[in-house]
Every structure is written in structure tokens, then in C-alpha cells.
């Protein structure tokens, strides 16, 4: 085989990257926590697998940065007290996890979030927000 590796490649290792950075967004995942609790571990794992497959497709389009689901245990803290479970677990929509993505702009980030199969199937909704950067003000 007479294939030669271009020597220029190795200088790749010393190159400074000045790639145009896309904006970072957090997708805050909200779902019916009471329903999630009732539906059980098996169902929760099923949904996580769907999320994994979706994350894989986002990684392919260079949009995925990371994310984690949250456990169901909660404490609500105010100045005077610490509330457990109670009112907020009964709420229709609680935060059940987050996903971090890269996107061109908030329209695209929202369009990407809408493509999540669990959003499409109505299991959860997402709140999409750009990460605030320090722009020197």
C-alpha cells in the first residue's frame, strides 16, 4: 500500500482552534412527576433509552453536550422552612432533568427540542433557554 500520511496532519496537534462557536442552550425537561412515580422504574428506564437514542442523534449533528435526568426526591427550601415532597410533587409539571445542547439560535434550539420523541409523544415538555454569557457589561 503506497498511502502516505501527510506530515501536515501532525501539526494539527499544535493548532489553535478558532472555530465559530454555536450558542449553548439548556433544555429544562418538565414532566408530570406524580405520573412518572406511578409508572414505575421499568417505564422510566424505557424513557431514558429513548432519550439516549435522541442524544445520539443530536451528537451526530454536533448539537449534544450532555444532560442528566433527576431523581424524584425533592426538598423545597424557603427562608423559614424546608418542605419535602408535598405540594410540588403534586404539581402537573416538575423538572425531571436537563439536556445541554449547541444551536445556532433559540429558534433552532426550540426546533431541536421539539424533535425529541418524548416531546412528540406528549410525555414531557421542554423549556429552552440560552446560557447567559458574560459579555463584558
Amino acid at each position, binding site marked *: *500500500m*503506497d*498511502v*502516505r*500520511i*501527510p506530515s*501536515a*496532519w*501532525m*501539526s*494539527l*496537534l499544535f*493548532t489553535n*482552534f*478558532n*472555530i*465559530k462557536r454555536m450558542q449553548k442552550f439548556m433544555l429544562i425537561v418538565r414532566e408530570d412527576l406524580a405520573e412518572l412515580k406511578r409508572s414505575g422504574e421499568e417505564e422510566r*428506564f424505557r424513557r*431514558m*433509552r429513548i*432519550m*439516549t437514542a435522541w*442524544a*445520539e*442523534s443530536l*451528537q*451526530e*449533528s*454536533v*448539537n*449534544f*453536550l*450532555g*444532560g*442528566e*435526568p433527576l431523581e424524584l426526591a425533592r426538598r423545597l427550601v424557603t427562608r423559614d422552612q424546608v418542605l419535602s415532597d408535598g405540594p410540588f410533587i403534586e404539581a402537573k409539571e416538575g423538572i425531571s432533568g436537563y439536556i445541554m445542547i449547541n444551536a*445556532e*439560535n433559540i*429558534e*433552532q434550539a426550540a*426546533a*431541536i427540542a*421539539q*424533535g425529541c420523541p418524548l416531546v412528540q409523544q406528549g410525555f414531557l415538555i421542554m423549556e429552552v433557554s440560552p446560557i447567559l454569557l458574560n459579555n463584558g457589561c
Partner: protein
Amino acid sequence: MDIVEVEVDKLYRDQFGKLLSALLRFSDDIDLEAAEDVVQDTFSAALVGWKMDGLPDNPAAWLYKVSRNRALNKIKEAKKFVKKNAGGGGDGVGGVDGIVGEDGFGEVEKEGKGAPIEDEQLILLFACAHPDLAPKVQVVITLKYVVNLKVEAIARILGLTIDGIDKMLTRARQKIRDERILFHEPSAAALKPRVQSVHKVLYLIFNEGYKSSWGKELIREELCEEALIMTRALCRSVVGDPETHALYALMLFNAARIKARFGRDGELLDLEEQDRSLWDQDLIRLAMVNLESAHGGVVSTYYCEAAIAGLHCAAERYGATNWNAIIRIYRQLLGLQANPFVELNYAIALYYSGDKVQALRILHELEKQAFLGRYYLLHASLGRIYAAEGNKGLAKEYLETTLRLTNAPDEIAFVRRLIKKVE
């Protein structure tokens, strides 16, 4: 199919997007949906008319002429006909033999300031890479308007329903309706900011064609070809940049190995099992040239991926793979695109480079994550590594978990083979 049907079918694939783009740029008063209807009607008329009267001398020119006349009528009907290129053109289309791009609309446009990109298809490609659309939707509309695939074919390729595609198209059309790129002579400066989005669309289309989970379907190889053709055209245009060459190189390195990816019985083969004499050395050489051209530009994820693919292609045998260079490039890739999926690939490369301890540490860290812990490739990789380490028990455990986490038949067959080897 008779000769007319064959011809119309071929023209549909070659010309649909070009006709569409030409119509849109011809007048501000026609939107995408109306233009699509006109082009569709023109093809129906061609099918019926040509069956009766036979093929015209220049079928493509016929299509241009008829579709433009129909568009004009449509606009007149709406009583708001504003001709964009006053004084342009005339009607020198009918019966002209020659390249269609130089007839009809092409002629009108060339009297303008001279577009930096003359290829209608490329202009349409830039319009489809609209930054407000999700990459998946960009891919769908590119396959529809640039590659000219029918909705059913797109649905099958992407594993979506026809209904789902229709919904995406409806929403996307609204964006494209306001898309100025389509209606005006695009200058290089107007197109430049969108080059990265275009690269991503091309990359995703190539990947859809290349994905192993689908097996050897003919349409998939065609998809790879389409992506290669479009990327080459972009390389040659004024908006192509070093990153375009990197992307082209990446595609070529992968395309070079297409024939070797499946065994005699259609089974999926990994890099180690592939017959390297089947790798296309001409494509590999062309890829190397393009990677050289990419040098000096911005180091993109495509550049890193191409360099990794190139190092695999340059290895005479699997055992001769330069893993140390590969892991260094993976580290750069992690700097550009830090995410657990890239970490997984980095860890696998680390294992083969000999740093087994660090590789396993990363893999087991990933396993703890809720999402990645349910990723079939992570379990498959751990299974293979433990098999190589001679730990049959753990190897089998991980491989069997893999089977529960994937539905793709080719991959299931592949993992079954691995399990058999372990036993």
C-alpha cells in the same frame, strides 16, 4: 415503464429542484408552495403530452419553458405580476438544443451582476440550511428539494412517517417563504455565514447513507453519492473553504471502505475483520489530497474525524494502526465537541493504544450516567474489551445487555457473533 416514463422519471430527479429554484428566483411573487405546484403540474403535463406527441428535442428546456409560462399565468391570475428582471431574457427557449442552465431563466440571470454560484442546486442547498430549522428538518428539505427524493423515500430512509415529514415540510416552507437567498442573486458574502450549516446537512446526509444499522440497501449508497457530489460542487465553488475539503476528505475515506463493510453473507464487519484489499485506493488518495487542502484552515470536527479515518485507511493491517496518533486527535476532537459519545470513542482508542487502565476507567464512568448507561455501543465496547482481556463472564454479561438495548437487525447479528466467539 415505457421510454417517456423513464425519461420523465430521470428528469424529475435531475431537474425538479433546479426548476423550482429558477422559478423562485424568477419572480418575487411566487412562493415555494405555488412554485412546487407549478413544477409538479409541468411534469404531469409532460408525461401526458409526451406520450401523445413523443419526446421534444430538448425535454429539459421544454420543462423550463412550460413551467415558467405556467408560473406567469398564475401570477397574472393573481393580478400582481411584477417582473423581477425587467428587460431580461425574452423567449429564446423553445426548441433550443444545449445545456438547459443556459436557456430560459439561466439566460435572464446571467445578464445580472453574475452570481458567485451559478449552480441552482447549490443555491437551493444554502436556502435549505436555514439556521432557524433543526438540522433534521434541514436534512429533510434538502432531500426533498435538492436531491429530489419523494416524501415516501425520505420517510423510509430517515425512519419517519410520511405524515411526520409532511408536517416538517409545512413548517419549513413558511421559513423558506421568507428566505431572501432564493429570491435574489446571492453574493458570496451572503452565503458565507451559512457554510457551516450546509456542511452539517451534507455530513448528516452522508451519514444517513453510511449508517451500518440499515445494511446494504442500494438507496443508501446513492445517498452517499449525492452527498459526495454536492460536497465536491461546494469545494469547487467560491464559498467552499478548507472545512469543505475536510468534510469531503472525511466522506471519501469512508466511501473508500464501503465495499468492505459487509461480509459474504451480508454480515456487518468491523475494521479488524475487513478485507483491506477491497478498500478503494483511488478514493483514499483523493481524500488525502483534500485533507492537505483543508490544512491551514479552521480545525473543524470534520478535519479531526477525517484525520482519524485517514489514519485507519493508511494502516496496512489492523495491527499496524497508529493508535497513538489517533488518540491525540481524539483529544483535539474532545476540545471541539466535548460530549460523552466522543469520550466513548476516545476510550476505545485508548484501549487499543495500550492504556487499558485509563480506557476502562472512562468507560465505567460513562456507564454510571443515566443516559449513556443505556447506550448499546457502550455495553458492546465493554463486552469486546473484556473478551479481549479474557474475562469471559463479564464479556458475556455486557454483550447480552447490548442485545437488550438495540433493535437494529444487523447489529444484533453482529453482537450474537461476538457472543459466540466468547463462548
